[in-house]
């Protein structure tokens, strides 16, 4: 081995300022004091990280890796429906498996959105290799029954093992539990494993922007390059459909999300809405218990989100409409948002009567017309 070319290089002295700290650290005395480096210290002699810095860090950390890596493409669409439709059209063109599996039951408009886009509704589970699977991110519509966290994890593992492509419908983020992060838990679980998925978002309920038609379709891809190409193809779906999306609702959302104070105000207002719904659930449950209405009504308080799947049948629903002027879909779904403390007793009376008075056997002619109305026909969620 020859001598190093750096053999003649000598050790440099310690930095005069930072060297003070080095020396201080070596000192064992209990009364030592470091008045060297110009860094702020608290009364207790400790370094201080400002609160606002911690907040900023939180925000950066919360910027999901998938977003930081530019693997997510997001396009503004016409609320939830528009996002689902654009996503479905995209998949029908570019995804090799043209079938989508939807939950039974699901929102009445889902089937047509997908079939008109060119996807087929999947029928049997044996053939589900790499198919698309529609998942309600939270507050399942119409049942209000969501998987638990453990169940979501099992679903995730099963889907990834079969190469199934998740397509989330997120229409109630923040509206279900009152917490925006909790309600996004299912989606984040899937994104965290590095795999791909689609998500349709709506601001109709959580920001009350129903008529403005604001929402977005996000596609989480494996790489940034893929995301860029995917986005360019999404534009080709959108351009011949409506050219570009409406600005007003989007401006409102952007303004709120970008401003810290407004964002906070929003989450408070959102929680208030979610809490009122939860309170209606409790009140209805209590009212039915108080009347001794036959049956177990605990599903009313166990279910989550805007809707309760009551379990009432079409005869009972028709009866409630005719006798009590209660309007609801024939599948027994009720929107808790339509209830108030003042009107809960009336609904409880109606349910009680329907369950105790009406017999299952006969369907009278006058109810026939009412029976035909289902959640498919209403324009609202």
């Amino acid at each position, binding site marked *: 081995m020859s001598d190093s070319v750096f053999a003649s290089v000598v050790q440099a002295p310690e930095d005069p300022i930072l060297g003070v700290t080095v020396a201080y650290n070596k000192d064992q005395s209990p009364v030592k004091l470091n008045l060297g480096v110009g860094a702020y210290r608290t009364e207790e002699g400790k370094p201080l990280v400002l609160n606002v810095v911690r907040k900023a860090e939180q925000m950066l950390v919360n910027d999901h890796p998938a977003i930081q890596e530019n693997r997510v493409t997001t396009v503004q*669409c*016409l*609320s*939830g*429906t*528009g996002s689902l*439709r654009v996503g479905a*059209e995209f998949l029908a*063109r*570019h*995804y*090799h498996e043209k079938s989508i599996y939807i939950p039974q039951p699901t929102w009445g*408009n889902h089937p*047509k*959105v997908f*079939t*008109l*886009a060119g996807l087929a509704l999947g029928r049997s589970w044996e053939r589900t*290799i*790499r198919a698309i699977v529609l998942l309600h991110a939270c507050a399942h519509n119409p049942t209000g029954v969501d998987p638990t966290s453990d169940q979501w994890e099992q679903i995730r593992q099963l889907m*990834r*093992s*079969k*190469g199934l*492509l998740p397509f989330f419908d997120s229409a109630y983020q923040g509206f279900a539990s009152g917490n925006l992060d909790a309600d996004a838990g299912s989606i984040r679980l899937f994104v965290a*494993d*590095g*795999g*791909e998925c689609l998500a349709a978002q709506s601001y109709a309920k959580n920001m*009350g*922007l*129903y*008529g*403005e*038609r604001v929402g977005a379709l996000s*596609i989480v*891809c*494996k*790489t940034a390059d*893929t995301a*860029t*190409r*995917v986005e*360019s*193809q999404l*534009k*080709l*779906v959108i*351009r*011949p*459909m*409506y*050219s*570009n*999306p*409406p*600005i*007003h*609702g989007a401006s409102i959302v952007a303004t709120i999300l970008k401003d810290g104070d407004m964002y906070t105000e929003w989450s408070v207002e959102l929680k208030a809405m979610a809490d009122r719904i939860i309170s209606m659930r409790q009140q209805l449950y209590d009212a039915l218990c108080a009347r001794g209405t036959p049956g177990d009504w605990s599903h009313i308080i166990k279910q989550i989100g805007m809707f309760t799947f009551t379990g009432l049948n079409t005869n009972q629903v028709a009866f409630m409409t005719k006798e009590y002027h209660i309007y609801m879909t024939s599948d027994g779904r009720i929107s808790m948002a339509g209830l108030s403390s003042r009107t809960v007793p009336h609904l409880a009376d109606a349910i009680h009567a329907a369950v105790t008075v009406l017999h299952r056997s006969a369907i009278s002619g006058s109810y026939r017309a009412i029976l035909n109305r289902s959640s498919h026909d209403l*324009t609202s969620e």
Partner: protein
Amino acid sequence: MGEEVAALNGYCRQTFESLKMASAILSLPFPTAAFTSRPFLDNLKANMKLGNPNQSTLSGKDYIRAKSFTRKSVTSAVEVSRFGDMTMAPPDPILGVSEAFRADTHEMKLNLGVGAYRTEDLQPYVLNVVKKAENLMLERGENKEYLPIEGLAAFNKVTAELLLGVQNDVIQQQRVATVQGLSGTGSLRLAAALIERYFPGSKVLISSPTWGNHKNIFNDARVPWSEYRYYDPRTVGLDFHGMISDIKAAPEGSFVLLHGCAHNPTGIDPTPEQWESIADVIQEKNHIPFFDVAYQGFASGSLDTDASSVRLFAARGMELLVAQSYSKNLGLYAERIGAINVVCSSSDIAQRGARGRRVFYGDDARIVEMKVGKSQLKRLARPMYSNPPIHGARIVANVVGNPELFNEWKEEMELMAGRIKSVRKKLYDSLSAKDNSGKDWSFVLKQIGMFSFTGLNDAQSENMTNKWHVT
């Protein structure tokens, strides 16, 4: 495989860039990615070395067929992108011009691409009546509930009246079904979906040339189309005889897409006499006129004059489809507000979408059952976006439905149309003064609306962009 795809994509992009520039300047229609990407995928298949016996081909794409679906394939499912084969789509030929303009740093650059009104200072323009309407709306503090699928009733009413005239028979007899749509594009798309579902196999005839997005709309809606001659480059005017011939030659019962006024991109409109002849041949062939009205009021400055072609056809008792847009005339581009109108022979069909009858003109009267009207358009809108956006609809309802604001609007519109006309005059004067070639520039004055078909060729257009920074 990745490298070859990337190289092909690069080649794609270069070719697309230059094609895009040239075609955008000439406002020529541009082939979609679906049309152009296939040859490259085929090339890819041919050139690829297929070393892996597990590769299979399914509808032109190559996949690795996994041997089993055990835990081993969990990794492969998560690691391989499902969208890996996807090519980069070309930028939109029209909207891409603005992108190119933005990229140009020259101080004298000029954007003559997208059809959005600009003031004398080349700034976007929000109409005063729109600001007034929005303030009124804010003061009233109306809610943001869902509109019905067919849109805001007040909007639909004033929109049909604006198009046809409130005294028109069609309005008085309630023979028009109006459904709020997402501006012109969205309204055209709803109509296309209606054609696809209820007139399967029927063709749409579109002008050559026409707005670039028309073909995309019909392609995506799976409606077959063909072109009728329109622009005559020799006269820089209308090829009237070609147009009539081609409409006559088309299969009976075709839809004929007509620009209500201010033809895009040529700026060449038929004269009233020519419109009569066009209506004659359409009636003769039992075709259905399908109007695209994107510039009512903006072309001549007069709302009624600009609607005269549509009203001419309606006056003959013909059934029509009419797509309207408020993007230009009310400057509501981004609000996406327009409508699709179905003018029917009877109120039943219009209102209830019940089974109706379409009477064929001419000696052989045939009765054909068809389902049209509001309810069927709703069935198409619901799975597309459920219901339309409220904001733009309210602005229109407030402006058009309020006599004071309506008059103010008419004035502002005359100003906008007036500015366009005066720019035409100045351009004409300037060209005539500077050009010694003897070329007749009068078409600049004869053409109408926002666009002017210059008759410049590719080389000339490129020179304008590259040397003079005019995109």
